[in-house]
């Protein structure tokens, strides 16, 4: 190999990228992620995938969809890129001392409301201004919980899909 080729190789920027190859593992990022039967929004859906579930990546499709196969299953399907991650999402534990993940009920959309923590409710009862704030926060929580998965999907498409234009 000539010195010129060595020099050219040395000048290639070192990019710590994550080039995916068929067979690599990706993870489900969020709850209510559907395994779609076709690589398009509003395609008929197969089963709902679990948060953190490992999937075998097959290939990228047009429109930021990816063909994936749930581990141990024969049938592949399609997932929008924003619902996939290269690392599993961070586990949440209700108490720091817990050894297993025990928080799965809260999601970024469509989740049941958790309600204000009891301590905050009791604190709000000590002051009129805090009580008004508590009422507002409860209303905000209802507003947030009222956002549907369809609305969230449309919002994710709004920023991600238009990028192709």
């Amino acid at each position, binding site marked *: 190999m000539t010195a010129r080729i060595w020099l050219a190789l040395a000048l290639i920027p070192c*990019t710590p990228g994550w080039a995916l190859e068929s067979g690599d593992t990706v993870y489900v990022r969020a709850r209510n992620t559907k395994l779609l039967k076709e690589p398009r929004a509003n395609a008929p859906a197969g089963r709902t995938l679990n948060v953190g579930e490992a999937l075998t990546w097959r290939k990228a499709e047009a429109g930021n969809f990816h063909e994936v196969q749930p581990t141990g299953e024969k049938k592949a399907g399609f997932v929008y890129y924003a619902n996939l991650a290269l690392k599993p999402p961070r586990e949440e534990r209700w108490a720091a001392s817990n050894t297993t993940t025990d928080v799965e009920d809260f999601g*970024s959309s469509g989740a049941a409301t958790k309600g204000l*923590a009891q301590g905050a409710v009791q604190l709000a009862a000590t002051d009129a201004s805090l009580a*008004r*704030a*508590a009422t507002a926060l409860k209303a905000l929580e209802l507003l947030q919980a009222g956002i549907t998965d369809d609305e969230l999907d449309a*919002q994710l498409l709004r920023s991600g899909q238009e990028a192709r234009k």
Partner: protein
Amino acid sequence: MTGWARAVLVTGLVAPLSSCLHVQLVPGEVPSVEVRSPFRPHPECEQLKLADVGLGEELSLGDAMALRVVSARGGLALGDAGGSAEEKQLAARARRVALVGAAVAHVSERPLVPWRFGVLQAPEVNAVSAPGGAVFITRGALARVENEDQLAGILAHEVAHVAGRHALGRYGEEKARTCELVQVVRDHRPSFPGEPPPSFSDSPFWQRHFPAFAHYVDVVLRGATVDFDDAVLVPVLGNLSEKLVDGLLRVGLDKEAEFQADAGAVDLLLTLGYRPEEFIRFVEQLPHDGDVFSHHPGPAARRDAMLAHLSRRRAEENPLRPQPRKVPVPLPPELK
């Protein structure tokens, strides 16, 4: 006089003398006391700064802090979808902010947190977040936003603070400070042969006068989970949340945390397909005087750090990221 009252008295008298020296008092009515410098850090207290906090404790503290923020900044602009035209407009705006925030949170490092995104009535230009996923942007900041990329960037900056548990770091520091204070009192307390180590919750003096603090201190010193939903701890929760929010709104987090949140915002924007350059431009145009983001590093330093981070990220290959957008996402009608 109880042992603890004597300890407080002795501490009050001796502490000023003992800041630099170890003082051995002459035996007398008060038993022999070895005074330790109050400025020598206790390792068990230092550990509290970095101790992990479960989501239950985080949410309890975060909800109390959210109450303080909303109360201090004039309430939330929620509107009324069934009200007047103006109220409907406010409701639509609140919903859009919640939706953009939900998308940002969806691709964050902590998608399982119960995120909430609200608009504060305050006219100042600011955004703030509390542990557990309560994120707020002020009406003043919203009015300056020119496109959805900038709004997403502001929310993403706060999401990155929550994901990085930056405010929880302050909470850890508060715990460590409380622990140090208590240890100083313990160090100066007269010791009686055969007496077990003092416990605040067992002390009649502290139980009678400061039951909440005594209970809190015992939990903190054990390194156990603080159950802020316990009614006895409401005064402590009130005090802590007030102190932490006051610090957040007046002084803010440290510069390192702000730079981290900026980098996190750039990452989130890239993942969603937004243009980080738009958020950088928003930051660059912020005045850096008065109360407006005054606790953040200067706009020029933030811009340079974000541009460098963006350049590194763009050089990376990430198949789970859309192609860079050429033009920003226009503001939806309800935000204009």
